[in-house]
């Protein structure tokens, strides 16, 4: 089969599921909604795997270079000759890889949710939203045009908003959804302006042409965008920096991360799909997509590096103190994405220098498996315990042996213990950092040890320790979600178990993929090896951290409590996430609102409303007007009007002089 014959089906099948479930209403397909969506997803995933096989092993590699294929392109809106918005699908190594990751994880989440969300009143709606999200995400990764990416980028944000706020009767969920939407919208603003600059300077919105023009140092477009500058920074720097802001917002990079912990109010499988494996890595994907252009401007890559490194360290430290299992996982996601970002930041174009790029996407790939696995396990646990709080868990290894093993695999993978998948990708990232920047390497090393520590803190507190759960399981704790007790015993239905098994296998084996033979920045694959001796330090640090976590949390003791008291103030600061949320609230409530909102309110109140006082006055005014006496208000309007005209004249005089001197 030719790509054009089936590639469109990959995103369109989830869209069909959304339309079917959305339009048919929540009652007619209530029973079969999950099944319909899952089957369509299965087909879509199979097609994506087939396309990946074709691309990587049959016809993608031509003369040692992975070619870019655009099997579908629909000329949609032509703004001016040369500048058009197309809808198309671009196949290159990273988009093919992402298609596989998104469809695969989405399929697992679809299957897991069959059992997990059973009995939920808005079951159909849930699957409709899930399908909408998958469609948007697939559109985002496969887009051939930067504006097409942006459109799907917004759609992804919208579906994420709908899914975070899925339990719309909980105020926390509604406000979390709103927060996520607003924060990412502000970041997207940067993306949009970046697109405007790129589009205008490069004269195209098409990725291939854009990259070709802006990486060719001799092209007029490149000369134009680097020659023009604004506030001392070249327009290229501005455009890329603004695009990166958009990416940082979606990927919850410091300081735009504040929405991610709150977003955990959504159903847990949703967190696994959106806030672990797919949507939050969109920022990494965006930078990778434009990497050839980014590599033309090293200062912006420096920013990418340091934002990534700072986010990785910040989130890892905060994760050590959180007591909500999903929040710990959320911060760990942020920290791992920070890894991917700085790996991209230290990469350069060509050969061995491109290691960071390969490593970043490799980590994205392995992370998708083990992090969604961890989230789905957390879902199972929350299902049983009816609480997100670590304090209410403990000793679960006997009651949930199956989940226990799966969670342990996830923890070992994220901690970077060989031979689990996370080990391979993390070693590559550290190697790339080591080769370019010793300080970044140092941060990466420390963060990797902290990661091992907090993940095993989680593991020991949940599965070891002593049991803190009352034996009854009557659902009297209403804090959990999906209140019906799961089918098929404590650990959920066969479908739920199946997803966990498959993802565990992924977390175990994904690291064996020789990534540099598929994904490199200049599309010229080669073999690369991480020297064995390089791994000794990180792995032994991680093992040490695991032992420390075991010593503190494996049995009930007061060591952890003592440590907490010993750290005192410092612990509080970290526990409160360095007061970043509070800082935002301070800035908006105390600075922005008074400076902008209040004067506006004052004008409205005193000039607009103040003049609208009551019907009686209006009657009197109308009477006056008819008698030929004008109301003060109209006179005032005319005054403004005239002042405005006068102001314009003054302005014009200024410009006139300006132009003619």
């Amino acid at each position, binding site marked *: 089969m030719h790509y054009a014959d089936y590639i469109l089906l990959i995103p369109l099948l989830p869209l069909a599921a959304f339309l079917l479930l959305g339009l048919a209403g929540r009652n007619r397909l209530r029973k079969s909604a999950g099944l319909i969506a899952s089957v369509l997803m299965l087909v879509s995933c199979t097609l994506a795997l087939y396309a990946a096989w074709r691309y990587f092993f049959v016809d993608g590699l031509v003369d040692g270079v992975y070619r870019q294929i655009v099997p579908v392109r629909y000329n949609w809106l032509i703004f001016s000759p040369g*500048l058009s918005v197309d809808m198309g699908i671009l196949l290159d190594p990273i988009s093919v890889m992402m298609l596989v990751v998104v469809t695969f994880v989405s399929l697992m989440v679809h299957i897991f949710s069959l059992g997990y969300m059973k009995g939920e009143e808005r079951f159909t709606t849930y699957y409709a939203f899930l399908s909408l999200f998958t469609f948007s995400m697939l559109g985002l990764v496969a887009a051939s045009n930067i504006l097409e990416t942006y459109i799907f980028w917004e759609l992804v944000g919208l579906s994420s908003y709908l899914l975070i706020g899925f339990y719309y009767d909980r105020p926390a969920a509604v406000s979390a959804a709103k927060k996520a939407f607003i924060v990412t919208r502000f970041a997207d*603003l940067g993306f949009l*302006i970046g697109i405007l600059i790129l*589009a205008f300077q490069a004269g195209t919105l098409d990725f291939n042409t854009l990259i070709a023009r802006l990486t060719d140092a001799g092209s007029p477009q490149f000369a134009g965008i680097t020659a023009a500058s604004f506030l001392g920074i070249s327009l290229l720097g501005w455009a890329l920096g603004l695009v990166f802001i958009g990416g940082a917002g979606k990927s919850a990079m410091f300081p735009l991360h504040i929405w991610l912990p709150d977003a955990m109010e959504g159903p847990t499988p949703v967190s696994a799909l959106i806030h672990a494996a797919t949507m939050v890595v969109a920022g990494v994907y965006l930078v990778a997509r434009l990497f050839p252009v980014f590599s033309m401007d090293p200062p912006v890559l420096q920013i990418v590096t340091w934002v990534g490194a700072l986010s990785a360290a910040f989130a890892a430290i905060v994760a050590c103190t959180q007591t909500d299992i999903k929040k710990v996982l959320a911060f760990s996601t942020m920290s791992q994405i920070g890894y991917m970002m700085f790996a991209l930041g230290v990469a350069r174009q060509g050969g061995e220098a491109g290691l960071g790029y390969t490593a970043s996407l490799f980590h994205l790939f392995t992370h998708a498996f083990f992090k969604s696995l961890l989230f789905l396990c957390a879902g199972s646990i929350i299902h049983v315990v009816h609480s997100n709080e670590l304090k209410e868990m403990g000793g679960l290894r006997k009651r949930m042996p199956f989940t226990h093993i799966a969670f342990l695999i996830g923890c070992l993978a994220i901690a970077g213990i060989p031979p689990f998948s996370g080990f391979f990708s993390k070693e590559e990232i550290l190697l790339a950092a080591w080769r370019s920047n010793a300080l970044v390497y140092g941060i990466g090393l420390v963060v990797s040890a902290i990661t091992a520590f907090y993940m095993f803190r989680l593991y020991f507190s949940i599965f070891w320790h002593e049991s803190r759960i009352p034996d009854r399981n009557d659902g009297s704790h209403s804090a959990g979600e999906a209140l019906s007790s799961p089918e098929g015993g404590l650990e959920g239905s066969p479908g739920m178990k199946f997803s966990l098994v498959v993802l565990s296998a992924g977390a175990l084996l994904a690291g064996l993929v020789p990534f540099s033979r598929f994904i490199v920045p200049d599309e010229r694959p080669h073999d690369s090896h991480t020297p064995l001796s390089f791994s000794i330090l990180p792995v032994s640090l991680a093992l040490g951290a695991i032992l420390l976590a075991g010593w503190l949390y494996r049995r009930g003791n007061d060591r952890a409590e003592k440590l907490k008291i010993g750290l005192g103030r410092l612990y509080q600061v970290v526990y409160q996430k360095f007061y970043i949320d509070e800082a935002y609230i301070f800035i908006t409530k105390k600075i922005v609102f008074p400076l902008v909102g209040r004067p506006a309110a004052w004008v409205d109140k005193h000039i607009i409303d103040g003049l609208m006082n009551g019907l009686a006055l*209006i009657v009197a005014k*109308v009477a006056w007007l008819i008698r030929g006496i004008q109301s003060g208000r109209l006179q005032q309007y005319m005054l403004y*009007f005239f002042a405005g005209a006068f102001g*314009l004249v003054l302005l*014009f005089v200024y410009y006139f002089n300006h132009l003619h001197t």
Partner: protein
Amino acid sequence: MPKDFFALMKGELLVGLLIIVLLFLKIGNKQRSNETLLRLINGLLLFNLAAGFFCIRPGNLFGNSFQTDPLRILEKNMLSLGTLIISLQAYDWLRQHKHVVEFYILLLSTLLGMFFMISAGNLLLFFVGLELSTIPLAALVNFDLDKKPSSEAAIKFILSSAFSSGLLLFGISMLYGTTGTIEFAILPQRLDGDPLQLFSMILVLTGFAFKISVVPFHLWTADVYEGAPVAVTSYLSVVSKAAILFVLTPVLYTVFKSPGDTWVPILFLLSILTIIVGNLFALRQQNMKRFLAFSSISQMGFILIGIGGQSAEGRSAVIYFLLIYIFSNLGAFGVVALMSARAGRERIDDYKGFYKSHPALSWVLAISLFSLAGIPPTAGFFGKFFLLLAGAGKAHYWLIALAALNMVISLYYYLRIVKAMFMDESREPVEKMRTGMPAKIALTVCVGGILVTGLASGAYQYMHSLIAR
């Protein structure tokens, strides 16, 4: 010549004919029920719209004072479409009104005025058209005859209009005085950068700015919008503004082409001021009509950015955006009109829990608001994106950044209404309203327009090809 006369002026003649038919209906003795009348009139308006798509040819009449070409006919068709949609939406309100025929006579008179304004080849016909489109509007604003705010709004409207027309006329006369011509075709050659000419340009610009409520000439807007009947408000905010913008763009692009570097920065300043003030005030409104008034003010600011691009793309982007704006704003106003006519409620709080009782209407309003806010993939996003892209041609990046920032701020207040409808509970929910057939058709057209012009659009390319010709 007579053949040309009928062919080229067919739009104006048809509207004139409709007015005469309505006059006969009024003076005829036969009593007809409002329903029959409204059906008849809506049928005639539909015919008027359909006729606009036939016999499209360029030409001049009356010594070049009347000009027509495919682009102008397209613009007139857009106005006819807007009028028809509003008429359908006003069905529920007019059914109980005593003066249906008068309403339409006034409405069609303003439409006729706009047609002449668009086709004007000189300043004189333009001014006559403008006045013909303004004065009957004042009477329309007063059409809630038993409501005092409506009368107040009418007085305000007519007085402010008179003032702005005065300034405009002052500018026109000075222009004539310094150049000795009123022909649009000759004016550009006679403009030699004389300060008095530029001063008159500012005055003309001010007159236009008033009509499309650009800050700081916007003060009349909110009061008039709030006081006027919903149908008239939507007419004022959509059709009337579109007509002015259809004229403003070519006047700036052709007549005032040479002093372009003077008006472009002024236009940009006004646009950003308009967007910001419109947004800040829209944030605080409790009344739906006032809210839409301020939202429309900020939309005008975006249009000015597109005009400031000073290119064929800029002009196409403006017309394209206006087409989308007709659908989006009328979609929103349609729901508001229904609420006002059937339940007598106009506050934002009244929309709490609206989704529970009226799911379909809630979706219509939500899609319209999303389009106004510029969220992809609704058409509004592409409209705004193209305006910004056209404006970016002048490389004022601060301005583009500020405008884009305001797109995010505006999102907040549009979402406020969506949230009220879908997420909030109401203590006194609106009773289930029956949506009449005409309103249903109108809203379907609006939603269809929003989705189609955004998703599959030859519209922009068609406009661009007409302009680039």
